[in-house]
């Protein structure tokens, strides 16, 4: 398996074939109609996703901007015996470290901080490499994208932890937990990065010129 473009090989697009994105059926492309439907599942066929790059960039920039309030603002407020204490994601992780739960601290650090940043930076790198037409590391970039797509959902972890805490720790001024603004921003970051992975067309990585 060689990397790079082989001039003798025919791509599906050049042969007039389109692969359905949902059911993967190959169909011959018609000449007039811009919007063809897959004969098996009815999806609209896209030889390349419409405005794939532009939409992905928009979502990536949105995610990047949202990352700041998500991490800098508190994500929940803990009331214990009358005293209120707002906590950011990072402060929450510090609590786990202090109480000796290193394992959980690592899990939350990964899911809430590393994964979102890795996703945003990762997709950006791939996008930049496409726009600058770098021809190397094609397989690695595709693999990296698959990893990004797979781990993306797991960032939602912190949101579920908050949901359980808020619902259970609800004993008035003695002890209660309520969410704080970062929760909404964080949920938004996870969603926008997941959408960015969906709007990105991986076939673009393999496009020569």
């Amino acid at each position, binding site marked *: 398996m060689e990397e790079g473009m082989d001039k003798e090989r025919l791509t599906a697009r050049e042969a007039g074939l389109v692969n359905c994105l949902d059911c993967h059926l190959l169909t011959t492309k018609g000449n007039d109609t811009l919007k063809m439907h897959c004969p098996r599942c009815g*999806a609209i066929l896209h030889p390349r996703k419409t405005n794939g790059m532009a939409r992905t960039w928009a979502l990536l920039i949105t995610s990047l901007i949202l990352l700041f309030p998500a991490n800098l603002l508190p994500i929940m407020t803990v009331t214990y015996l009358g005293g209120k204490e707002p906590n950011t994601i990072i402060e929450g992780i510090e609590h786990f470290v202090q109480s000796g739960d290193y394992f959980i601290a690592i899990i939350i650090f990964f899911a809430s901080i590393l994964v979102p940043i890795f996703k945003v930076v990762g997709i950006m790198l791939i996008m930049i490499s496409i726009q600058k037409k770098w021809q190397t590391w094609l397989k690695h970039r595709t693999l990296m994208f698959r990893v990004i797509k797979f781990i993306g959902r*797991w960032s939602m972890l912190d949101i579920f932890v908050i949901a359980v805490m808020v619902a*259970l720790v609800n*004993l008035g001024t003695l002890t209660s937990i309520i969410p704080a603004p970062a929760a909404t921003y964080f949920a938004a970051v996870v969603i926008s990065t997941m959408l960015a992975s969906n709007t990105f067309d991986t076939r673009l990585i393999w496009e020569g010129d």
Partner: protein
Amino acid sequence: MLFHVKRDSVESALILSLTGLILFVPAMVLPIMTLNAFGLEQSANILQWVSALFRTGFYMVGIVVLLTVVVVPLLKLLLLFYVSMAIRMRADWNNLGPTFRFYQRIDEWGMLEICMLGILISIIKLKDLAQISYGTGLFCFVLVLTITLIASVTLDEHKYWSSIKDVKSFSR
């Protein structure tokens, strides 16, 4: 061994989705956990998590939890049942293709296993501070989660797509 199961994957998908659907309502309505501290008690089921988020004004987070833990998993079970039944009965029901396509599209938005990990982490976090007792809802939730995981792993998309095509061309 899992590859042998794929031969009868439509039948197992039917059984799994039906069982999942039966267990779904208890999983959502029965309490997951009860917290006991300072002599006071608080328990919650999954729907109450969502209403707690709404109560505190965090509507978007509440909707996200509602979608990823309740709506999407329920839809996936219903849709899988619908498509599997149609294939099993070789009946050209309405919109088989678009339905299965929709199923595949929403697949990643069902986050039951991530929710499970969140529950575990909360348990560990709360264990030292208060007494926790586990409800029947948690048991049902774990069952539904296991069912959806097995259903995903054993789903043979290629076989389903070719079966859908067969069913369509088979009818007048």
